């Protein structure tokens, strides 16, 4: 360790002083150095002399730890869904008397060849890694690259905010996404969603959700529909992405959307509640297992890093809205849709709401800062999520739109809470 310190101290002279050779890229050196060793600053000699051991690195690291169950499940289930889909395609071909389709191996599988018809746990993980690793690398590589560039331009220390965003992004896109689209999305969101506002702490919208929104509207074919939720190794003609040619499987919410008043039964015919809860379903990488999300939520709330108010308010908002909407729609003479006819708690099991409220809505920068504001904000995210799911004719899922909408209104919500505080103060006079 001392050896490492000495080595870094020696390099430091090349970067630190104003007139040193590489001073322009001092923020990069600093980021690297403080990644290894805690910074050396000490408290000023008047005022507060001691500081908590927590820094922003640890806060971000705590969120990353909270996302690990989701990531691990994403790696496993991406593989599991892939091989299950392949098996069903092969079975279908046999039933129709056609020749079994030929399996195309991916880059990692070309070294570690899978047993396609009876994949082992190892094969499953290999496929999951084969998709998730490049996505993580592109997400972090592009995002951190841009962050570092802007830090150098501003001569500011590199902020840790993107460490969480990078992981979030990997978990909220389908594992089949073409990497170039992901790279464009990340670049767009980090530059226009974050850096133009001044970087970490200054952005209005959650950067990871910006990536998803950009991809959703720019490359709708890769972000919605029934074909993209199970990853493969093929790029069918005219459709970029890593897919299984000829395979499609709707998500739970798409099934519900297409169903009528018997939506609950239709859903149960495809996915059991246990499948939905434990995550044995296709979907975006991180949203699948509600159990993994809940483990993360517990860790965030326990450590005090994530706001339990936002999470609880969001869940209550979903439940309340899901109870009210069918009644209100009937009273207003609106057509009943499938999502109005699943149980309120099934709204929590379907889609990405839980992931969104636990990991995206709680982003401290883009959510309200007052406690009262957090309740309102969380509840409204739940409300709009269900509203989009039930009333909107096109989108099966509403979490992304709800979070972004409320990100935009977070300062407004706080404004009213703060105004009430001011009013209380004036009332004393």
């Amino acid at each position, binding site marked *: *360790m001392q050896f*490492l*310190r000495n080595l870094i101290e020696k390099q430091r002279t090349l970067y630190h002083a104003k007139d040193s050779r590489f001073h322009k890229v001092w923020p990069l050196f*600093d980021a690297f150095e*403080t990644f*290894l*060793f*805690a*910074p*050396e*600053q*000490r*408290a*000023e*000699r*008047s*005022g*507060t*002399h*001691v*500081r*908590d*051991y*927590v*820094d*922003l*690195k*640890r*806060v971000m*690291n*705590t969120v990353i730890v909270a996302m690990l169950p989701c990531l691990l499940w994403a790696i496993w289930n991406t593989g599991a869904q892939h091989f299950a889909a392949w098996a069903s395609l092969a079975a279908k071909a046999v039933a129709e008397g056609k020749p079994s389709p030929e399996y195309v191996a991916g880059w990692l599988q070309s070294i570690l060849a899978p047993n396609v018809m009876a994949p082992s746990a190892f094969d499953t993980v290999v496929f999951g890694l084969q998709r998730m690793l490049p996505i993580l690398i592109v997400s972090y590589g592009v995002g951190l690259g841009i962050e570092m560039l802007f830090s150098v331009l501003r001569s500011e*220390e590199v*902020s*840790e*905010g993107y460490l969480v965003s990078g992981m979030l992004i990997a978990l909220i896109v389908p594992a089949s996404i073409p990497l170039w689209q992901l790279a464009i999305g990340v670049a767009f969101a980090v530059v226009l969603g974050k850096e133009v506002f*001044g*970087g*970490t*702490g*200054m952005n209005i919208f959650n950067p990871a959700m910006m990536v998803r929104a950009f991809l959703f509207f720019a490359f709708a074919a890769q972000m919605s529909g029934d074909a993209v939720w199970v990853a493969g190794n093929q790029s069918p003609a005219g459709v970029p992405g890593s897919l299984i040619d000829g395979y499609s499987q709707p998500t739970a919410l798409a099934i519900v959307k297409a169903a009528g008043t018997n939506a609950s039964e239709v859903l149960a015919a495809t996915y059991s509640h246990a499948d939905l809860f434990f995550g044995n379903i296709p979907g975006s990488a991180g949203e699948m297992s509600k159990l993994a999300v809940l483990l993360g939520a517990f860790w965030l709330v*326990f*450590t*005090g*890093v994530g*706001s339990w108010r936002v999470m609880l308010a969001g869940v209550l908002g979903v439940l309340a809205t899901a109870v009210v909407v069918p009644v209100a729609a009937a009273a207003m003479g609106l057509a009943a849709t499938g999502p109005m006819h699943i149980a309120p708690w099934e709204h929590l099991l379907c889609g990405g709401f839980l992931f969104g409220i636990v990991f995206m809505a709680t982003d*401290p*920068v883009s959510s309200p*800062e*007052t*406690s009262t504001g957090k309740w309102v904000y969380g509840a409204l995210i739940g409300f709009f999520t269900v509203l989009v799911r039930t009333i909107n004719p096109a989108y099966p899922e509403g979490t992304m739109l709800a979070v972004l909408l409320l990100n935009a209104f977070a300062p407004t919500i*706080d404004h009213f*809470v*703060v105004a009430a*505080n*001011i009013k*209380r*103060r*004036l009332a*004393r*006079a």
Partner: protein
Amino acid sequence: MTTHTITKGFDLRLAGRAEAKLQAAPEPRSVAVETAEFPGIKPKALVKEGDTVATGQPLFLDKLDRDLVWCAPASGRIAKVEFGERRFLLRIEIENAVAAGGKETFADLPKPAGDRAALVRAIKGAGLWPLIRQRPVGKIVRGDQVPTAIFVNGMDSAPLAADPAFAVQGRKADLQAGIGLLRQLTGGKVYLALRAAGDHQSELRDLQGVEVHDFRGPHPSGLVGTHISRIQPLKAGEVAWALRLQDLARLGEWARTGRYPALTTVALAGSAAPVRGYFRVRQGAAVATLTAGKPIAGDVRVIDGNVLHGRAIAADGNLGYYCAGITVIPEGTGQRDLFGWALPQFGKLSFSRSVMSWLAPKREYVVDTRLNGGHRPIVNIGAWESVLPLDIHPSYLVRAIQANDIEEAVKLGLLEVTEEDVALCTFVDPCKIDVGRIVRQGLDLYEKEG
């Protein structure tokens, strides 16, 4: 008696508590009075090097209020009068005649007599006026606005802080005399805040003429800002005065004896302190007076005050005018933890449970002065709010001050806090923002514009 329970806050469990044993410190060879402790004054020296002064003789006055003087805490020859830039008086050092075997002589001080205005002049002339501080802003009282109420603080919840109740044991007569003075100074009530179910309070609870309020809960339950907010929040335009129980005893001592109360009670604490305990010591003595010759050496920081709110002094520096406690902690120079942010860290003090020390809730921590992180823009994970028991939204207050929007900052509660009240926010902040400094900047700007 009313009991107030504070729930938001945090007690820093630091190692190095002062032992509850009072001993007399030896007479110091010299004593010093420094002007840096009194921001905003324009001092004019009344003595020069070589003069001989008696205890209680004025050393300098404030040109903004010529009645306001600071007195010699010892008798003897003026050893040094130090000036800074533009001949700004910095420090006056007196050789203590008593330590050299001489006798202490006492200057004639004005007596507390006559009407309220005469009493104010007398306190100023006795060098004791700075003991009283004004809320809002938390500085020496200026102007002649009569305070709505006076808050005497009989507790201190800061980490390793001296217990005022212990420090004034056996001084009931002084306290009662002091209360008599305070009652002449305000038309309103005189409040005494005490720790609920605290020790050494039997005499305090018998005091006449004060309304006692009990406070329980974690720091900042023992700060006057918290007390005012719970007992009688100030309306716009009102001022309150605040002083500590030890200072009330000094006022009373002067009222009873007519002499300058040169002896104070100081607790020496902190993990790096060579000895720990309470000392009866002359105001302005060198810190070494308390350690019986054991030098405070090495990589340590000596703080006049506590770790959350205090002023670092040199290891051979002097106790301040206000000093009720000295805290000595390691400085931590050059220590840099490898992967400090990523390892579980079972032995590091934190408010957050993302540091694994919550597994050992009883442990006492040795804490040094490192920031443990880099400065970042505000990322509010709600930590400030969870340690501030006032009805204030701290992040909005800080932003208003940073935007120099003092009108808005006042609306948001700037006048209800001082740097001391938000010190815990500074402590817990993962972005290492010095909230106290920002609040003081806001208050300075308020004074300038107000």
